[in-house]
């Protein structure tokens, strides 16, 4: 059978191309535009080539927040993914309690970011906050997120875990529910240990939802802005100033639009790269 060549079919791609152009490419081009020029006003602009990129990549302030950002996202993933899996495994599967669990788990996901920040900002205060008061006055642990860098760090981490572990747990729960009973029955017949059931049945079947969970939690945590901003404004010092806050300060506070644009692109490429690495690593093992 001969294949009919008809290049007019390319026209069918046009709607998608236009959609993507308006939703992503054109807005991003404005940033590209700023990143390679120094723009003062409508009439005076100078092409600077890769200068802004060079400057941004050598800026120690950005190096610091980039490092902080990587440590933070790594901590988030290392805590939330195993914890989410653990919760999903222990959640009841039938009856009234499973519904109760699902509802309770969903509540944190429905709360807006700045509200979550405010909740913990008050909750953790030593004078009027329940948590702060408990730690300081009842348990005798000195805790002050406004003054102590590691306290602030831990608080920001706890906020994220509180806010988003549910998402991981719910995704895993849906993955677990999709496993037919017969797999567990076969495993019992084969005398598989609980660990073997987890390793060879549950984990492989959860893989696709875990991939989504890891990607979402990585991207979200890598872009964290509101919670540390509401809690301490990035302090004490710069201890909880992550990438997006540094970028915001640069773009809107100092009005350094050129370096900010260059930095935005680098930021975007980092997220793209890491996401790609995760995706490839998690799907690659299937091919062998």
């Amino acid at each position, binding site marked *: 059978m001969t294949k009919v060549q008809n290049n007019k079919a390319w026209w069918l791609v046009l709607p998608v191309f236009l959609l993507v152009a308006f939703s992503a490419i054109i807005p991003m081009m404005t940033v590209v535009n700023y990143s390679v020029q120094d723009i003062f006003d409508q009439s005076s602009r100078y092409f600077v080539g890769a200068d802004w990129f060079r400057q941004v990549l050598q800026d120690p302030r950005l190096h610091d927040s980039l490092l902080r950002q990587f440590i933070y996202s790594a901590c988030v993933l290392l805590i939330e993914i195993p914890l989410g899996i653990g919760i999903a495994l222990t959640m009841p599967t039938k009856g009234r309690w499973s519904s109760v669990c699902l509802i309770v788990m969903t509540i944190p996901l429905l709360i807006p970011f700045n509200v979550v920040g405010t909740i913990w900002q008050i909750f953790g205060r030593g004078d009027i906050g329940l948590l702060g008061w408990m730690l300081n006055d009842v348990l005798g642990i000195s805790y002050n997120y406004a003054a102590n860098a590691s306290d602030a760090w831990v608080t920001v981490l706890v906020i994220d875990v509180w806010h988003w572990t549910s998402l991981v747990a719910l995704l895993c729960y849906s993955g677990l529910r999709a496993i037919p009973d017969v797999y567990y*029955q076969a495993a*019992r017949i*084969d005398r598989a240990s609980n660990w073997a059931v987890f390793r060879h049945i549950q984990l492989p079947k959860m893989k696709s939802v875990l991939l989504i969970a890891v990607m979402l939690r990585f991207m979200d945590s890598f872009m964290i802005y509101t919670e540390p901003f509401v809690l301490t404004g990035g302090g004490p010092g710069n201890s909880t100033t992550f990438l997006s806050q540094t970028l915001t300060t640069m773009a809107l506070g100092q009005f350094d639009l050129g370096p900010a644009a260059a930095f935005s692109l680098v930021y975007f490429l980092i997220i793209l790269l890491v996401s790609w690495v995760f995706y490839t690593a998690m799907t690659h093992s299937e091919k062998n």
Partner: protein
Amino acid sequence: MAEIRLQQLAHSYSANPTGPEDYAIREMTHIWEQGGAYALLGPSGCGKSTLLNIISGLLSPSEGKVLFDTTVVNDMSPEERNIAQVFQFPVVYDTMTVYDNLAFPLRNQGMPEAKVKIKVQEIADVLDLQPLLKKKAKGLTADEKQKVSMGRGLVRDDVSAILFDEPLTVIDPHLKWKLRRKLKQIHEQFNITMVYVTHDQLEASTFADKIAVMYGGQIVQFGTPRELFEKPHHTFVGYFIGSPGMNLIEVKPEAGGVGFGGIHLPLSEALQQRLAATQWSTLKVGIRPEFVHVWDSPNDDAMQADVTYVEDLGTYKILTLKLAGQLLKVRVQEDKPVPQGQAWISFPSQWLMLYADEFLLEAAANTLPASEVSHD
């Protein structure tokens, strides 16, 4: 290696069963002897899988006992019962190779690796899995996966019994036959009790020495394929086994026998006495299409019937006859003449079965072979 005994066993999925309809398994007592090859035959939803899961220990019966030899195993897990089970749909461990899949149950038992290797190679040979041993189980086709699934059941030769729950559903027809032969060979080689659940009578009779036919949560007959064919103990067995199934006609008792629509069917003295002594609400006679006698010409013993349809199936023909308002199927060998328009038939008394409330009614002396009982 064990004899499996079910004692007054019953199971209901509801917490407070009120009547027999609530039971998936109605009270039964049954013995699977050590080393037998058995089939559990019945339509979907008759309780076959439930019964199998109770034997393997995946399900705990609500009433009665399961015994392996003399030990009550009700509270023992499948591991403790040391039983293997193959399920209807393939279950493989995706992350492992075919070799590791087959080795998995052995390694879980703590078998030394050298011995594991021998056993796995042996079973891979039997199931033609040799070329696949190094492949990941995930990429296999459905029937390859099912072979791996079966292999995991067969690889342990110390098991009390191997249970098969319609294991060949997903397998190609030509391979089905081959695998059934394999199972039979394995059975002969290792002398393991095997219980094979199916709804396919051909599958059941080629695999098993004895077949238990299940219907509505009970075993209505347990016997060799020949017994099920020649002397169904329940109208369901008559209808379900054989192709086409048994002719069943509702009758009323008459002097000297039973009758319907002006047709009189004489019964033996002993059977008449038995009928008189039995309480019943429906009474039926049954005769297999193979056993209806077709006469070449009219005679005094024969009943006249209208031929309504002739179906030619090559080596035999199936006639549909109308006798006193009742439709009958009759199987005629190809070398016999096919009656046109009218047929003269009779029901040989040794093949005419009487069913009261769906269960076979026999003359009291049922230790004698069927042929001698009815010839009097």
